[in-house]
């Protein structure tokens, strides 16, 4: 039977829950890192990615509204995360669209929900469901620890390739640069909230489970991108 973990053990368990299902292992991420994608493939990625990350502030807004008033620091974190996504500097989705345009697609195509795959729609719906239905601390574990905290390691691998192999300019790949910093902050703050407020065995176990599912959902999403848009065009190392 599970026991209440101290914060160090709980953190390690959260990291392990994510590790096995890291999206770095998806065939799409591998093909990206190996420089095998075309700009058309990357355009399809951007058209899908917009609908996953575009509503991130919306997801967090549901969690914010349901986070108990006494958890002031957690609420403030969610608010600043939303602010940074939307109006803290450049709107993050605008930078994603800039990248998409450099891949040959258009703002209209990117923002059109008809251009996302069914799996992307599934990931987006899962994010909304978690934000609206789960205990807010569990929702932070799923959305911020399970999903957002993965981003720096993914983009750290992918961004140099975008410049060196695919030949994008610094301005064109700014979307990826900024996420290395902001998501590192968001991911770590997410950990801090979960470690502090998941203070029962039940909450800890639910956080672990949702991290595992979140990482699984992201892996599913990127794997589907490969099957939907790339498979057949290229082969990658197993």
């Amino acid at each position: 039977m599970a026991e209440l973990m101290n914060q160090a053990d709980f953190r390690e368990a959260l990291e392990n829950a994510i590790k096995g299902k890291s999206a770095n292992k998806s065939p799409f991420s591998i093909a990206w890192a190996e420089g095998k994608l075309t700009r058309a493939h990357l355009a399809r990625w951007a058209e899908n990615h917009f609908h996953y990350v575009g509503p991130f502030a919306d997801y967090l807004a549901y969690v914010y509204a349901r986070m108990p008033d006494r958890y002031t620091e957690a609420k403030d974190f969610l608010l600043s995360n939303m602010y940074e996504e939307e109006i803290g500097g450049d709107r993050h989705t605008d930078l994603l669209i800039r990248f998409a345009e450099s891949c040959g697609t258009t703002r209209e195509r990117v923002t059109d929900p008809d251009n996302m795959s069914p799996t992307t729609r599934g990931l987006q719906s899962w994010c909304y469901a978690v934000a609206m239905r789960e205990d807010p601390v569990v929702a932070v574990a799923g959305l911020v620890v399970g999903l957002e905290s993965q981003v720096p390691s993914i983009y750290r691998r992918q961004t140099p390739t975008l410049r060196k192999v695919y030949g994008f300019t610094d301005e064109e790949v700014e979307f990826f640069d900024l996420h290395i910093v902001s998501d590192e902050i968001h991911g770590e703050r997410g950990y801090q909230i979960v470690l502090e407020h998941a203070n029962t065995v039940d909450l800890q176990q639910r956080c672990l489970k949702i991290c595992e599912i979140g990482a699984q959902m992201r892996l599913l999403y990127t794997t589907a991108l490969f099957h939907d848009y790339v498979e057949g065009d290229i082969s990658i190392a197993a």
Partner: protein
Amino acid sequence: MPIVTFHKNGEIFVGEVKTDTNLVVRAGIRQFPFPHLSYGCGMGKCAKCACQVLAGGDKLPEPNWKEQKLLGDRLAEGWRLCCQIWLSDDIELMQNTKTA
């Protein structure tokens, strides 16, 4: 691990950080140099995290395009954007509210 010596408005704060650390990330997660390091967007747009490097600047990577764009001539005076640099060696920095 890198030792960071941080001057702010006449006071000096010293702390040790892990290798490959970004000080804005550290401040964002409420660890040294929090609450002393001022920062804003974290994306090289606002320059609120700009600091003058007093020592250890030779160990830093060359300024990237954002630093070149935002800091211009101030680069020659040792200014850098903390949100754009990852530290692997000891460094001494100064950030004054009036000049950042």
